[in-house]
């Protein structure tokens, strides 16, 4: 992670220079005061004659360097911020870019919530760590080292005191920090637990009220609340030990300084002013140690964040661009099929069972294929293999005659438009949402896509039409309306392949059939322009599937049968079963008449 500081190393160096200067100036002052008292007031080296001009001179000199010290301090602050914030920013940006390029598996492994925390809160912690390091460590170390040296030059006896006091305080600090770190982690966990209950209960308000379980939820929260309070208390109680302990050591040292100092003054080794200076130095040194302790804590938290960020930054995307490889000659004879799966299997990492087993399937250009099957039969997973959201664990997947792994990802996904099962829209206007997948889309194109998706009507009825904001959580739009926006977003791209994963589930039958009619019309129009639109539709309802050229039946991850509706009725018992469950006995007469 250090390499991120490289571009800003000049600022880092400047910070250190300014900090050290500021501290040294701070440390120099007691000496000047010593001079004022010893020489100016008491006139120790002038036979007891005070020297007012010396006092004034020294005073002016002190004022000057105090001003310089202030400037150094402020400049140091500016430099450290330039360094740390840019450092943090670079990491944040890289993290975000990296996450976008990870494969689905990798994102699932990290979990969305954790990824978000890493970009937002962990980068802030690391940033704070760097800024604290540059500022605090430099200051506290300088105080310690220079302060001790200054003390030594005053009077060797004082160094004894320092030699005793400093280690004692260091030990105290280290012990407290060491004990408090695991407690901090514990508090974090308890906070997560509390937030968890809170979030679930706000979201699940209907269920809680519906089942009248408010009292129980209050209890559940009460437990989490008590746990958190107890954990936080433990931390606070521990920290409450630190300051008094440090205080005692510090004050003992001060007493010792005066005591020993009195002897040394008695024997005329030093003057009273020296004792005063020594007192100041001792306080400075011990404050430096305290500062160091705070920084240790920031470091502890920062290092955890650093690790978490490195986990993301060092993960290479599992699914990467392919080099434009050789096309498979056998498949590319003539016009290649739009999509072909060749003994493709897939299982999630770490799972024992295949989700898809030995699927071999071809979809010709311009063809519409429907996929039906029970919940968990692998329909969505099959679809996910096409844009390489996941890579097949066995077998091959071809698009336009080429193994999908040979494509540059951008190019592969650019051929397709996918409408997922769960609609994801963004906080922008309806028009912007529809045009989101393209660099630039004219209003004309947006309206056209909306019209085909059967969304134009409700959009125009919105308060600001296409300019209406889509809010987070989509409380302003119903499930069906959101799905239609997603459909429009897919269509506006004029894709070569359209993948619909149960994307009309929230639409009522009338709207759905109107959509497919419009889609058909659009497909015909595209064909006239020489542009073939291949469609793969995952469907729950046979009525939807019937519209396709062919239907593939999946069960338990295997392809059971593939053919037209009529062929399947004849050949596949499972298909018949599905149909029967959707059509009534009374209507089957009508259905037989059609079939």
């Amino acid at each position: 992670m250090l390499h991120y500081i490289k571009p800003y190393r000049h600022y880092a160096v400047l910070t250190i220079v300014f900090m050290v200067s500021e501290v040294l100036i701070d440390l120099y002052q007691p000496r000047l005061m010593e001079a004022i008292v010893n020489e100016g007031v008491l006139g120790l080296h002038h036979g007891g004659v005070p020297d007012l001009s010396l006092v004034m001179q020294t005073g002016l000199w002190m004022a000057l360097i105090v001003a310089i010290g202030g400037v150094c301090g402020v400049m140091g602050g500016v430099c450290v911020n330039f360094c740390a914030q840019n450092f943090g920013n670079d990491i944040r940006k890289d993290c975000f870019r990296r996450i976008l390029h990870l494969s689905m598996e990798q994102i699932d492994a990290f979990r969305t919530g954790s990824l978000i925390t890493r970009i937002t809160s962990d980068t802030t912690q690391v940033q704070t760590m760097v800024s604290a390091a540059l500022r605090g460590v430099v200051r506290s170390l300088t105080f310690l080292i220079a302060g001790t040296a200054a003390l030594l030059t005053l009077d060797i006896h004082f160094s004894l005191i320092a030699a005793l006091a400093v280690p004692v305080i260091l030990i105290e600090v280290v012990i407290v920090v060491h004990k408090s770190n695991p407690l901090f982690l514990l508090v974090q966990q308890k906070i997560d637990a509390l937030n968890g209950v809170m979030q679930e209960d706000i979201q699940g308000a209907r269920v809680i009220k519906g089942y009248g379980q408010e009292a129980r939820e209050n209890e559940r929260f009460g437990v989490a609340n008590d746990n958190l309070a107890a954990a936080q208390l433990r931390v606070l109680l521990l920290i409450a030990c630190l300051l008094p302990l440090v205080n005692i050591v510090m004050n003992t040292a001060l007493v010792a300084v005066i005591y020993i100092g009195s002897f040394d003054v008695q024997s005329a080794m030093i003057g009273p002013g020296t004792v005063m200076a020594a007192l100041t130095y001792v306080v400075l040194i011990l404050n430096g140690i305290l500062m160091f302790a705070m920084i240790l804590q920031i470091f502890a938290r920062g290092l955890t964040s650093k690790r978490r960020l490195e986990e993301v930054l060092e993960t290479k995307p599992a699914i990467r661009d392919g080099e434009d490889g050789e096309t498979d000659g056998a498949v590319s004879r003539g016009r290649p099929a739009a999509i072909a799966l060749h003994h493709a299997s897939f299982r999630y990492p770490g799972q024992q069972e295949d989700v898809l087993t030995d699927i071999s399937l071809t979809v010709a250009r311009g063809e519409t294929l429907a996929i039906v099957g029970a919940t968990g039969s692998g329909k969505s997973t099959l679809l996910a293999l096409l844009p390489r959201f996941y890579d097949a664990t066995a077998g091959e997947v071809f698009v336009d005659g080429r193994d999908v792994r040979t494509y540059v990802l951008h190019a592969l996904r650019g051929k397709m438009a996918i409408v997922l099962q769960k609609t994801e829209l963004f906080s922008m206007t309806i028009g912007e949402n529809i045009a989101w997948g393209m660099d630039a889309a004219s209003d004309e194109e947006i309206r056209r896509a909306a019209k085909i998706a059967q969304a134009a009507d409700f959009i125009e009825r919105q308060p600001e039409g296409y300019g209406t904001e889509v809010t987070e959580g989509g409380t302003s739009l119903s499930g069906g309306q959101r799905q239609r926006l997603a459909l429009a977003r897919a269509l506006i791209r004029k894709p070569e392949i359209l993948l619909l994963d149960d994307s009309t589930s929230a639409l009522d039958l009338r709207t759905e059939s109107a959509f497919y009619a419009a889609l058909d019309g659009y497909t015909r129009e595209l064909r006239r322009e020489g542009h073939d639109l291949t469609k793969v539709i995952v469907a729950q309802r046979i009525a939807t599937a019937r519209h396709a050229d062919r239907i593939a039946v999946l069960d338990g991850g295997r392809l059971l049968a593939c053919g037209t509706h009529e062929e399947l009725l004849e050949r596949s018992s499972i298909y018949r079963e599905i149909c029967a469950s959707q059509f009534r006995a009374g209507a089957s007469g009508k259905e037989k008449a059609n079939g």
Partner: protein
Amino acid sequence: MAKKQAAPLIGPHRHMRAPVEHAMDRKAACLRLMQYFRAERWRVALLTLIVAVSVAAGVSAPVFMSWAIDAITAADYDKVPGILSWMFGACALYAVLLFFQGRLSARLSQSIIRHLRKDLFEKINGLPLAYLDRHPHGDLMSRMTNDADNIATVISTSLGTMFAGILFLLGTTAVMLSFSVPMTALTYLTAVATVLATKYIAAKMGRYFRERQDLLGQLNSMVEEQVTAVRTVKAYAREAQVAAKFVQMADSLTKTGIRAESIGSSMGPIMNTISNFSFVIVSVFGAYFALKGWITVGVISAFTIYSKQFSRPINELAQLYGQIETALAGAERIFAVLDEPGERQEGREVPETVKGEIEFCHVNFSYVPEKRVIDDFSLKIGAGRKIALVGATGSGKTTIVNLLMRFYEIDAGKILLDGQDIRTYAPGSLRKLVGIVLQDTVLFSDTVRYNLAYAKPGATMEEVKRAAELAHADDFIAHLPQQYETVLQSAGAELSAGQRQLLAIARACLASPRILILDEATSNVDTRTETRIQDAMTRLMHDRTCLIIAHRLSTIRDADEIIVMDHGRIVEQGRHEDLIEHNGPYRALYETQFAGQES
């Protein structure tokens, strides 16, 4: 009352959800917070006592120190050990009291914050659904976490420090005055300078910090949105564009951040400089006064220490000021929620012998005053009957459920249960009667068994298993790592949509309510499984009133009566066969099922 500034709808700040609050009435918030202290008044009293004594000890230490220096200067070396032992005693006392002070404030703060959180949570739980639907959840959560935390921090650390600081200043001033009035005046000069500097810097800082908070909020929203929707981003291969937008936002945040933090971090050095100047002034003027014989050398020493010690509490108070402001703002936000009227819980208990006959009489309802969602809705559902509600999305079906459950109150008309207006019943009692399975399944992060037995916490394993079997959920539960004891880590997000719905249905089965409402419950489950569930439901539905809301005709074909809704009104009703013959809106819906897409 806090004045709220609504987030603008357009422009760069539109992503900001939480309203910006300018606390107009800090005093009121402060007073209310004091109420929470009342419960802890013994601790507060003890804390006050301890702080007062510790400050006395702390103030006296430099006095002894200056006497010691004076003794040394005057070559009265024998007096030194005596003075030192007094000094040591004062310091030791101070340290001991500091220890107890820390512990006491810790307990005090945690106790108060625990109380506050509990009150807030119980309030949120008791708020009417309308409030929760209208207010962004993230903002509510933030009040529980950020705002409460700020208050806790202030109480545990800042309060003691502030009180001690004020006492310290007073005590120190008294001692300083006793030593030398002119020197005290000089020291106060720097104090004034410090305060002025703080105010100036704080004002400048404030602006940039707020700006930074805004941008941070926007950035966080963007991160959350894009990472959650990463599938869509990858599907449309928009990684580069999204990243570019992020880079832009991150860079502008950094720029503002640098400005804000630079000003912020200049506070320390500037305070330090002022305190150093005071050191200079004390040294020089002290020397001058000493030369004139107005004060002793020891007094210079005392004042150098005092001047340095003086600046510390002033700095701390200055910083505290900001913290306290934030905490009070947070307290206001929390009190704003606490002041919301809760859901009214009065009413009779629904009698055990209730049959489950529902009647809607000319019901009108709208979420938003101008748009009526339910219009003159009248419907009678006999006890134990199965009624299906169909219609286009947005025709008002889900709203009917909200009204029956009294999640929202009707505008006009009435709803009767066994002939009694449901508004006479306590909402809690009414809802226990009705079991609902919603469109978006909500589960809790706990074991499968906990979730299934949610309505009846004391249910036996037998009952849980039976309910699971009825809903055909037993199959997949058996395949889970710990079966019924498997903990759903992310509230069931690890299960498929269909599996979650099966659990919700099982949960409703176990609740065994008098009235059952299925709101498009099975639309994510394939029709084969759906049939099996419906078989079980039919058994379960015997002798219960059922309301089924779906737009899959296969789901509702078994209904006793079908109600067709359109724009909040009933346009057709009757049995399936009759409606087909009638050739109305129902027929049109039904036809499209079979005619496929050939319309």
